[in-house]
């Protein structure tokens, strides 16, 4: 049934775009600071709650909520970086990772205390009604998610490639020392990276919370995005994006052809295969091993 297949692919792409955004957040921070931020998923969750508060309890118009949420998420990211990461920047990487794990627990339980662990629906700008276009069946929601995600990714790409700050970010990612020598304030770049990363997580949250309902445990979606990032190649931005999208589509297709269990696991089987055959992922460059 071509129709069903295509609808699966499209909805898979939609979820995949969200994974891609989160994966992007992971990779940005990783490239700049070598840190794997386990609280990335929680940025998504926090933004979901912020938008919920502004929209439902504050009654603000949707577009305003969107902007405010992304900005607020950015602040959360910076706050996290300052409080939890910067003090131990020189410590072993593992310790920083644990710090982010602890931070994710704090964020999650705070949300739980403030909002309860109940599941909350979030209204969305896009309708969930089906739309037919030839053999394609999808919802306006799917299209909206894909469209917004691509727009954000494009914006980010342009920012990094064309602006001065973007260049500073790239320089820092390549070599902190060299960047410093060139007058780049590495500390500010770090904060900025975390802010952008959290902001992107914020966008992801606004896009996905209406689909999968909001609750403090929403952050666990970060694990999947993480896998997607690895699949595509953790060191590269396009890799993370493609990996995330591929993940979304693959999940849907394998869920369709097999059962729920295989669906979950198919990604990881693929992942292991990819890692064994090509350790840096589909797009990653082979890491230069310093002796």
């Amino acid at each position, binding site marked *: *049934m071509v129709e*069903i297949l295509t*609808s*699966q692919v499209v*909805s*898979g792409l939609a*979820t995949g775009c969200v994974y891609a955004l989160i994966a992007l957040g992971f990779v940005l921070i990783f490239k700049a600071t070598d840190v794997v931020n386990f609280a990335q998923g929680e940025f998504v969750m926090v933004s979901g709650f912020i938008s919920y508060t502004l929209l439902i309890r504050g009654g603000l118009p949707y577009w305003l909520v969107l902007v405010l949420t992304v900005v607020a998420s950015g602040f959360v990211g910076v706050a996290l970086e300052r409080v939890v990461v910067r003090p131990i920047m020189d410590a072993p990487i593992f310790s920083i990772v644990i710090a982010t794990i602890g931070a994710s627990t704090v964020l999650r*339980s705070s949300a*739980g205390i403030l909002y*309860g*662990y*109940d*599941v909350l*629906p979030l209204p969305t700008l896009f309708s*969930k*009604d*089906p739309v037919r276009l030839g053999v394609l*069946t*999808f*919802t306006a929601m799917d299209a909206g998610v894909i469209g917004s995600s691509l727009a954000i990714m494009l914006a980010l790409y342009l920012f990094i490639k064309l602006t001065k700050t973007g260049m500073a970010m790239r320089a820092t990612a390549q070599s902190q020392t060299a960047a410093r020598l060139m007058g780049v304030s590495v500390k500010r770049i770090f904060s900025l990276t975390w802010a952008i990363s959290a902001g992107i997580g914020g966008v992801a949250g606004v896009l996905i919370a209406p689909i*999968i*309902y909001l*609750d*403090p*445990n929403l952050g*666990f*979606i970060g694990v999947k995005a993480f896998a997607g990032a690895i699949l595509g190649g953790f060191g590269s931005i396009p890799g993370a994006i493609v990996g995330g999208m591929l993940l979304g589509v693959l*999940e*849907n*297709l*394998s*869920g*369709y052809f097999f*059962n*729920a*269990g295989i*669906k*979950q696991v198919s990604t990881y089987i693929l992942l292991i295969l990819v890692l064994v055959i090509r350790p840096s992922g589909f797009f990653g460059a082979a890491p230069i091993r310093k002796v």
Partner: protein
Amino acid sequence: MKRLLGRAAVLSVLVGVLLLVGGGPGWAEEGVTDKEVVIGAGMDLTGAVANWGVNIKSGMEAVFNRVNEAGGVHGRKIRLIAYDHVYQPPKAVTNAKRLVERDHIFVMMGHLGTPTTKAIKEYLEERKVPNIFPSTAASMWVTSGPGHIGDLATYADQTWMIIDYLVKEKKIKKIASFYQDDEYGLDGHLAGKARLKQHELAYVAEVDYKRADIDFSSQAAKLKESGAEAVILQAVYREPPRLAEQCHAIGYHPLFIGPSPIVVDKTIELGGKHVDGMMGVEVYPLPTEPGAFLELYRADMKKYFPNLALDTTNLYGYQKAALFVEGMQRAGRNLTRESLAKGIESIKDWDPGWGLKYSYGGDQRRVMSRVGRLVVVKDGKWTKTSDWVELKEGGRK
């Protein structure tokens, strides 16, 4: 400053060890003193079914608070100790041990979750702690002997009712099952399979999902392909709305119907127009219906938990606790585990004030009520669509 905090952290770990060693040697106490009865509950307060856990606990506490304010049962106040197991069996085991060994509970009451309660079943039996009215309607609690007793009709019973309704009244033969892939979902799913066989039918599709799954587009696709006219949902409150939404997105509109866990306002809140026409089985009245008992419920909830919305979830905990209190009343002042059991078993045709009667179902079927009725989502509310029916005993064979 760093030094101090570092020292403090180390010290607190040591203190923790010492504190733990605190208790005396184990006693065989029953949790009953002159003034007080201690009962325990394992709940999910922060995990996948937190909505049920938080509400059940509140419902129970509402009853106990009222009873305690009036002086308790036979002069004893009821103290409920609940720990959070996050719907994870190993935590449930640890919490159960803590409740039994440390807190010396009299009985385990309303323990939430099928896999979680299953994990502690043997332990409770071994320590002779009664498992009273667990918050899970899996059939095993009804047929596991004197250590366990359920309160309401099981998922198996309810699924039998669903199937009979679909086949006999709606004349639907193409029935599919959407079920949670664990002990909870399997109970109803397998019972349904057995009942279908008795009607000389079989599921046209059996589609499962994992606890905490959020995307069902592939399940929706499979269901559509099977051509099922009705889909039985062995799920809770998150999955039905999402499944319905995704089915509708691919142009598939079957009749959705499921047992009591889906009959919650949350389902409607999440699903919006997609759950219009969804049907369910409920085994006790809706919180908004008239009647003396429900008036009392509404008053108690308002008094003790004004911020909690009235919902089938807290009513579930409430009725459970009320039943327990009745059992305690009948047990008399000399309260032991045996006298409580006898007290509960003596309940026959007892109506707390809402038209339904509780009756002990006998040693082969340790449950207090077998009624159920169908409800449907109409105009954004669960509305009754049949009268109370005495459910047949559903089984998996």
